[in-house]
């Protein structure tokens, strides 16, 4: 055999071995489709609460006409309640700790595959406090861009992926045994990513505040604190730009009721006014668009000062989510540039009031 032929045969055999080795796992991934990415997963669907991987498939293959978009601030929404109140078929597509970049990618997928009537978008300072295009790397896990890019040539990264093979086998076992052996995957979208099983209490939020205030936890895990101009540029490109891209969809932007201790902490850091200035910019710019409504829940002190409904300094339980849906469906608490400025003045006054100072002193004792 000639040398060239010998080498060619060596590489062909190597390729054959490689392809044959990849086939069984790839077949299992395609057949079980653990993240619903390919749309081949058998019904009823089984969901993995790993949002960065699970959400793009859901955005593609579920049936809906209304999207609830955002970070963990929207995880406790009840889709059934929202659908009933808004007279729609709603789906929530949260990505915890995400930036607006990731949320925009989710919306693009939803828009591509569905005729979206309404988007409820929980916007906050942290999600836009980034350079345009930044993506949050959660626990150093690389963001699976290939699941969002709609490029079929990149789909092999999903198919030839032993993490997905692992989840496929687990789902197979779950389907056969009929139980959730890992207390992790769920079959009911209504409970997916909710925290109804968690404890919410004054003790938890006050401890979180103390840890943040006294430096045991870093506030900068929650915000980047870039110059306001950077955030404003991101707002123009990613938020306002996206809304303009879909003129036939109604956008409901809302500012969630994070706790008063969160606002107090920001004030103690000297960045509360800057944050409110960025949010005001959003209200100013979005109000100019015909397909946008804006709701402000930051001044709902009966929620923000009821510390028993919080799990930590920002995360509330589903009573707050229900209230937000009620307000949006009833069109209360709509805001505009003028009323939002008034709200902000009121919020700052409240944060600096003697009552809140006393509350904080008591916590820090």
């Amino acid at each position: 055999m000639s040398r060239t032929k010998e080498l060619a045969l060596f590489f062909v055999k190597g390729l054959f071995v490689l392809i044959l080795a990849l086939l069984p796992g790839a077949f299992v991934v395609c057949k079980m489709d653990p993240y619903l990415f390919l749309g081949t997963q058998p019904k009823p669907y089984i969901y993995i609460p790993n949002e960065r991987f699970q959400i793009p498939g859901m955005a593609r293959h579920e049936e809906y006409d209304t999207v609830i978009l955002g970070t963990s601030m929207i995880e406790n929404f009840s889709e059934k309640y929202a659908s009933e109140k808004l007279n729609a078929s709603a789906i929530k597509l949260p990505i915890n700790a995400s930036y607006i970049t990731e949320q925009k990618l989710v919306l693009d997928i939803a828009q591509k595959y569905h005729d979206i009537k309404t988007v409820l978008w929980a916007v906050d300072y942290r999600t836009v406090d980034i350079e345009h295009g930044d993506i949050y790397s959660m626990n150093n896990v690389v963001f699976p861009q290939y699941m969002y890019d709609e490029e079929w040539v990149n789909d092999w990264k999903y198919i030839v992926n032993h993490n997905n093979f692992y989840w496929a086998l687990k789902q197979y076992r779950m389907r056969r045994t009929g139980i959730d052996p890992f207390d992790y995957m769920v079959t009911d979208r209504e409970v997916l990513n909710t925290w109804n099983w968690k404890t919410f209490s004054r003790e938890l939020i006050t401890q979180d505040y103390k840890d943040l205030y006294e430096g045991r936890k870093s506030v900068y895990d929650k915000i980047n604190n870039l110059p306001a101009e950077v955030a404003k540029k991101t707002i123009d490109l990613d938020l306002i730009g996206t809304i303009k891209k879909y003129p036939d969809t109604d956008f409901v932007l809302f500012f969630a009721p994070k706790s008063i201790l969160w606002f107090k902490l920001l004030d103690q850091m000297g960045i509360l006014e800057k944050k409110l200035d960025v949010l005001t910019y959003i209200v100013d710019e979005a109000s100019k668009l015909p397909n946008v409504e804006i709701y402000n829940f930051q001044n709902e002190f009966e929620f923000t000062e009821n510390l028993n409904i919080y799990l930590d300094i920002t995360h509330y339980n589903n009573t707050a989510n229900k209230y937000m849906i009620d307000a949006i469906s009833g069109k209360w608490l709509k805001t505009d540039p003028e009323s939002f400025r008034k709200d902000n003045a009121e919020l700052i006054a409240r944060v600096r009031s003697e009552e809140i100072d006393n509350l904080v002193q008591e916590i820090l004792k």
Partner: protein
Amino acid sequence: MLFNSLEYLVFLPLVTLAYYLLQSLRARNFMLLLASYYFYMQYKPEYGLLMLFATFVCYISALGISKTQSKAIKKLWLTFSVLGTMGLLFFYKYFNFFNRNVAGLLSFFNVSWQPLSLDILLPVGISFFTFQSLSYTIDVYRGDMVAEKDFFTFALFVSFFPQLVAGPIERSTNLLPQFYQHNRFDTSKAVSGLRLMLFGFFKKVVIADRLAVIVDTVYNNYKSYNGVVYIIATVAFAFQIFCDFSGYSDIARGSARLFGFELMSNFERPYYSKSVTEFWRRWHISLSSWFRDYLYIPLGGSRKGYVRTLINLFVVFTVSGLWHGANWTFVVWGALNGAAIVIEKILGIGKRAGKQEYMREQAIKRRQKPWFVRAAVTIAGIIPMLITFVFICFTWVFFRAQSIDQALYMLPRFLEGLDTFDLQKFIGTRMILGLDSWEFFTAIGSVVLLELMHLFQSVASPAKVLNRMPAMARLIVYSICLSLVIWLAWTESQTFIYFAF
């Protein structure tokens, strides 16, 4: 750069391709040298300078030794080389440990001294490349090796990337001459190298990384467990460290074989040893033989009387413990192994079985005996094997524990609660020692598979069996093995344990 990373799977074929595309030997070696430094400097660019320093010291020392006839000057050059390499090792690995212990000793005598503590990270693989380069100078000093004149070839010997970070610690007499061979790409060698790498990856990513979770769960929260769980975690560690380290060695040897180089074998199924002495002939062979040749023999070996031999053995093993890390746990681990070997020496256990011919005769005689006699002999052989394994596991407790206190806390509790242990409940839970049940049984199944392969290796040569198969069947076997590695790999890739030494 880690072997178990995507980068390496791109890096290795590219370097192999470049190697064979280059025609001149000098260009090939220079390219390998650059690739090796690139490989190493991926951990931290500064590390490259340390390796360069060790290389330079040994290179000029060897040249100095070879250029003089004076014994005193030769000795001076050797001392320079020992001080240079061992000084580097001492500074980066033992400085803080030494200072802490001196301060502790002084405080015992009521002398207060604040130890100086350096905030430095241990450079990856420093124990390996310093030992390898030093062995070269000693070989030149002894006249076993001619001093290498070409600096780049010598630098390649010290830095050759497959075995740079965790061995095998190569001898200049074996590796250096191979850099002067003009290798042609040999498909059968390449297949055998890839096969070895595949086996190494199986051990590392399927077994070791999975077992690491069990071991870490128990050893990092040792006060929450006892009894059977300690036993499971320690046996798991025995297999984790074997699979991790021998997996690395296999990948290293397999990678080198792609270039046509042959590195020494580092492991010979050590858990099949019937004595601790035999275990050390089969475990980390390149280090054991390094200590034999460059410490045990210079100390006098077995030439200075019976008692001195025993002392030398004990000293060598204790020092080998310290080589593993700047912690008393490693010293105790080495000393325990040394003590066991001394006792075996006194009792006459663990002697080499004799020459090949004698072994073959014995095997023929055994085969002529009735099956029940053969079975009885086999079973009788398992008992010392089990005793050795239990002892080795006992020493692994010190090796894995973070401190002597931890080991001493755990050891008396190994037999606690054995009577009340509920196996059904233990394996019936969702999570078993940090792994979900599916993963836990995958780990056990993989260890069983490994041992079946080892048993197979003890009766036949897998390479020969594979070569006798029809081509298609052989390719299917390779595909199944590769499939196991790809699809059963533990999802969180981990670094190799011996990188820390």
